[in-house]
């Protein structure tokens, strides 16, 4: 069962995670261990906060470990052990660089990542709503088998068809920083070469400005301002978000499209050179807004203009926090 333990490589990883967590908790090196446990619905896992070695049997590892657990670190007191995928640890590196988390307070337990399943993609492949999936399981050979209710028929779907878009473009499936590595790094997905990482961004950029604006207008128009994207983002840790400011107010009482755009554009700009494309925002969005495209374009610009790749260097100063005489100035009139 996908959310009830797993088979093959992922079961080995889960076993390693339990050993590491039990050891860290037993020796008192950490106060809390943050990992994944079985969720309450098929295709779901859920963040777990463990404080006793006896609890570690709850830990699981599979293709549904979708949450970026680094989001909890700024709010946790004491010493913490945390399970991270390749993208998650880059967010964690940013939190250390930005002095929101002390490196010494965290035991980083990395997992060589095979990618995570995009539930929306899976639903689209199945052509039915989630409520019809009564149970789901993953096979050792990398397929996802889904049992559909009613007639009880099963569908086997190759995992590559339903992986999250960020996973397909991931350059660092193996965590670049860790204290422990749970599993063999040969088991990770192959890294996506840089020339292919921005193919969707480039394809979109070739459209006319009108088409591009219409696309974003249609996407952002769906926003219900629940701020799940912001809350799920490890890098959105501002004590007070600009949209919550009362004086001055940045968004109007009557929140029309332009107000929603101010929020989303503001967020993209504020995470420029910091966003690690973990996909947490898009997964959290209850109305499926494409929050990735613009952020990915920003990532590409930062890379091309400033040569900066976020979250890969514990000593690199963030682009928006520094100035270099070599910074391009062509845009200054």
């Amino acid at each position, binding site marked *: 069962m996908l959310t009830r333990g797993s088979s093959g490589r992922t079961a080995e990883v889960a076993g390693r995670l339990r050993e590491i967590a039990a050891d860290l908790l037993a020796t008192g090196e950490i106060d809390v261990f943050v990992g994944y446990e079985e969720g*309450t619905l098929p295709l779901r*896992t859920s*963040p777990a906060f463990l404080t006793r070695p006896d609890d570690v049997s709850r830990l699981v590892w599979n293709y549904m470990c979708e949450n970026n657990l680094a989001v909890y670190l700024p709010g946790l007191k004491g010493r913490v052990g945390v399970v991270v995928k390749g993208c998650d640890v880059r967010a964690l590196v940013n939190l250390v660089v930005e002095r929101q988390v002390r490196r010494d307070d965290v035991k980083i337990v990395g997992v060589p990542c095979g990618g995570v399943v995009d539930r929306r993609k899976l639903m689209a492949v199945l052509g039915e709503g989630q409520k019809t999936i009564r149970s789901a399981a993953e096979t050792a050979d990398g397929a996802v088998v889904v049992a559909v209710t009613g007639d009880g028929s099963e569908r086997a779907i190759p995992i590559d068809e339903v992986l999250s878009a960020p996973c397909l473009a991931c350059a660092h499936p193996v965590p670049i920083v860790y204290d422990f590595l749970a599993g063999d790094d040969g088991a990770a997905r192959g890294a996506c070469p840089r020339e292919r990482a921005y193919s969707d961004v480039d394809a979109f950029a070739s459209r006319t400005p009108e088409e591009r604006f219409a696309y974003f207008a249609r996407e952002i128009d769906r926003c219900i301002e629940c701020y*799940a994207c912001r*809350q799920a983002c490890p890098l959105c840790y501002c004590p007070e978000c600009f949209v919550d400011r009362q004086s001055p107010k940045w968004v109007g009482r009557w929140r029309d499209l332009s107000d929603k755009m101010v929020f989303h554009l503001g967020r993209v700009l504020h995470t420029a050179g910091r966003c690690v494309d973990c996909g947490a925002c898009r997964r959290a969005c209850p109305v499926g807004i494409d929050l990735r495209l613009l952020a990915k374009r920003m990532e590409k610009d930062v890379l091309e203009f400033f040569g900066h790749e976020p979250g890969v260097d514990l000593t690199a100063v963030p682009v928006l926090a520094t100035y270099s005489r070599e910074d391009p100035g062509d845009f200054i009139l």
Partner: protein
Amino acid sequence: MTPYFGMLGEGRARKAFVMAREDIGRFVTHLAVSFEVCAPVDEGGVTRFVAVDPDGACGAWGPGGSRYLSTRPLKELFFPQQETLFAFEAHSGTQTAAVLRAPAPRDDPGLAHDRGLARTRDERRAPSPSGVLRVVFGTRPCDARSLALLDLVFDAADYKDPYYISRRRETALVTFACSEPGIACFCTSVGGGPFDETSSDVVIADAGEEHVVRPLSAKGEDLVRGFEPLQEAGERELKALRETRARAEARMAGQAVPVDAAVSRLGGAFGHPAWDEVHRKCLGCAVCTYLCPTCHCFDIGDEATRTGGERVRNWDSCMFPLFTLHASGHNPRPSRRERFRQRIMHKFNYFVENHGVAACVGCGRCVENCPVNVDVRRVLEVFAAL
């Protein structure tokens, strides 16, 4: 005696009709002749109730068709996420005076929230004998029941919300009984059920090869009047209906949540350490409250320009820090722990004390859409076991 399949009927039997499955589209067309029809429509994988074309654009929906709850809750047709309560104009001179006027209908295509909600009424249409102007087609019993709970707030003895009440008065609900409840459903644990009739005006249910159609109110009678394909239901269809219902209720029996036990303990649990654990993974977003069909908290403010403005009402969420932030800077609910507790307590303790019923219909939207799988069913189990 006319067979009766209601759970919470009005105590008098009404007729049950039968129609062929394929006639459901014709029923929508029939309704659209006389009424504005709102139905669940898929917009990029997100379903919500919007005004549909008279041609029956919602053909995929039916008790035996696509079986799911809309992503967005029914409440927004009665209590929209944003609405203008009134507008004002400022006249400057020696003094500034405000002149109130009714809000202008907003026709900005960019405003998704307004589509199908506050549209200008078609003046050619007259209300039906029972006052119906708008039909919501394809609600689920849980969403219909949510209106009975919202009525307790917006149509109470001591407070009448004219905006909500007028929409409620002129709207009739055509509900699809749930032949196949979803895996996150727990309606039977909060007083509802897959065949619950609360607040519905017509219920359509699966009965083998046919649909059984049952008007439940004067509004419901207005809706089915003149729709020729309806035949009086016979024993065969009613037997099939009872079987469908028994299957659905058997499934729900396996998904029961100890809500009553939790409700009985929550009153004494305000300071319980269990809150430290149950809120821990909560990210503090408003997915659960905004998609909840019964959450009804709002914020009112003015959107003003130099020459006038509007008084606007927006949904608000107890999960946001701003919700209780005082002007002094003090916040009585300073962390997610207190805010999470507020959500649970309001639904399963305060609302019960005030109205005798929990503010939850068991639709499961908060369970399915939470980004980190916080599951209210598990939270209730924790408190039930105290």
